């Protein structure tokens, strides 16, 4: 059973374009992988098969379509081989069908490398708005995330997330130690594009003074405005009504005139005879 699943996973993940052109199976999941462990270039194995090689910190994969199920992921030093020592190992990682998941290799609060799957919110966003998701994946204590100087998300801890739908636009974001003004990361300008989910990861290690932000953007959740209210005066309607009245008058007038003319000329003709 397991080998079947591996075969299916690798076929789908590594298939030529022609095969992928077929409609995706309903139970497939969209999976991206983010490397957020400072310093180590790694290889990633899924169910014993190589998935990524020379994967560098601060980089993110394009989304992979994977059948739903459970996966055994193993991260090794680059070039260590499938049998090499695991930097991180996570077995029976659940990938729910239809979900959009980002698997993050990062440090725990205590500084130990771990793998955490986050399910991304890809629900429809109201017109004019953008979603921001913040994830604490750093070896650091609880933080507040501030937008334009105001705490937007408070007391966020590793490995948790917070999110909100905000008016689309650029914000200046920074990360402070929870309840303080001590800036740990940033500030950085974030362009929150309408209809997208901008996912911001705080990663690295406070002790090693290499805390950073990583950004992932998911698009396609936009919706249309509720309508186009393109007239409030009524003058155009009034002008049209006026011209309608004039039009009916012209129609009736012309009909009466023509009818009358014919009638009169007929009577004259009869009388003349």
């Amino acid at each position, binding site marked *: 059973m397991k080998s079947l699943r591996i075969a299916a996973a690798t076929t789908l993940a590594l*298939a*030529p374009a022609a095969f992928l052109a077929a409609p995706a199976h309903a139970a497939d999941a969209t999976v991206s992988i983010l490397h957020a462990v400072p310093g180590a270039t790694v290889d990633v194995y899924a169910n014993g098969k190589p998935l990524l090689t020379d994967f560098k910190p*601060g*980089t*993110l994969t394009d989304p992979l379509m994977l059948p739903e199920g459970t996966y055994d992921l193993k991260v090794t030093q680059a070039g260590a081989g499938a049998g090499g020592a695991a930097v991180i190992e996570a077995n029976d990682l659940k990938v729910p069908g239809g979900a959009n998941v980002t698997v993050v290799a990062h440090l725990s609060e205590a500084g130990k490398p771990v793998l955490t799957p986050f399910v991304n919110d890809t629900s*429809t966003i109201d017109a004019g708005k953008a979603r921001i998701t913040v994830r604490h994946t750093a070896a650091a204590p609880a933080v507040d995330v501030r937008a334009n100087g105001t705490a937007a998300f408070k007391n966020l801890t590793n490995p948790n997330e917070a999110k909100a739908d905000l008016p689309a636009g650029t914000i200046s974001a920074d990360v402070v130690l929870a309840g303080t003004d001590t800036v740990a990361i940033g500030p950085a300008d974030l362009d929150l594009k309408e209809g997208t989910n901008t996912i911001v990861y705080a990663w690295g290690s406070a002790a090693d003074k290499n805390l950073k932000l990583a950004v992932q953007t998911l698009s396609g959740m936009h919706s249309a405005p509720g309508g*186009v209210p393109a007239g409030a005066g009524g003058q155009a309607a009034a002008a049209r009504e006026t011209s309608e009245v004039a039009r009916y008058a012209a129609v009736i007038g*012309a*009909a009466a005139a023509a009818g009358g003319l*014919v009638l009169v000329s007929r009577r004259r003709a009869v009388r003349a005879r």
Partner: protein
Amino acid sequence: MNRTVDPGPGRSRARASSPSRGVAAALAAALLAGVGVAWLTRDSDAALPPASESGVTRSAAPTAGDAATHAPQSGSPAGTDGSAGPTPPGVRPATQQVGATAAAPDRLTIRRLGIDMRVVPVGVARDGEMALPETPAQVGWYRYGPRPGDDAGSTVLAAHLDMPGYGIGPIAAVGELRTGDVITVRSGDVSRRYAVTSVTQVRKTTLDLAALFARDGPPLLHVVTCGGDFDREQRRYDANVLVSAEPLR
């Protein structure tokens, strides 16, 4: 003998029914004149194709709102960039991608109708509807949607038909557009020409907004204003006039 006795069936019948024939002729003339005047003064809206053909009513083909439109995407699907043989997924820096975007539109010109209006970027009003410039003298461009020159999707330009204290805006004339008429949209140094493909009036209750504001599909220009009947209490029209145009190469 026959000649003197029988005046011929046609003539005798004609003479017998002379008064009623006169009335019939008069009525026919009245009808003809009435229809003629009605036709000459007909509303140009009457020449519009039925709304169902517009492609922006709910009954139209599911151009938007289908799964593909809203399927969340980011980047290219795995493997599609490698045409043959196994390829690992693409990897890129986890930073915000700064894509080059075309300039925003700033001028709408329709020479045949004498329309030459400033275009300003607009978004969404508090009630969730498209926000339009207050003055009917200006056109709003829905800035979250595609720009002129983008590869896919519909650029939406909309202006008020009328406004208290202003009167009727220049955009009111778009109802007179015919298939093939040229619309010019300027974006900075670049002017792009579009050919009108349809002019339709659609009741707001049946308008397919997802199709009107499509972010995918062929690159199109949608020029929108109001039409139909005006509700004096709500200060709203009950229909939209939609002009659809495609880029001219």
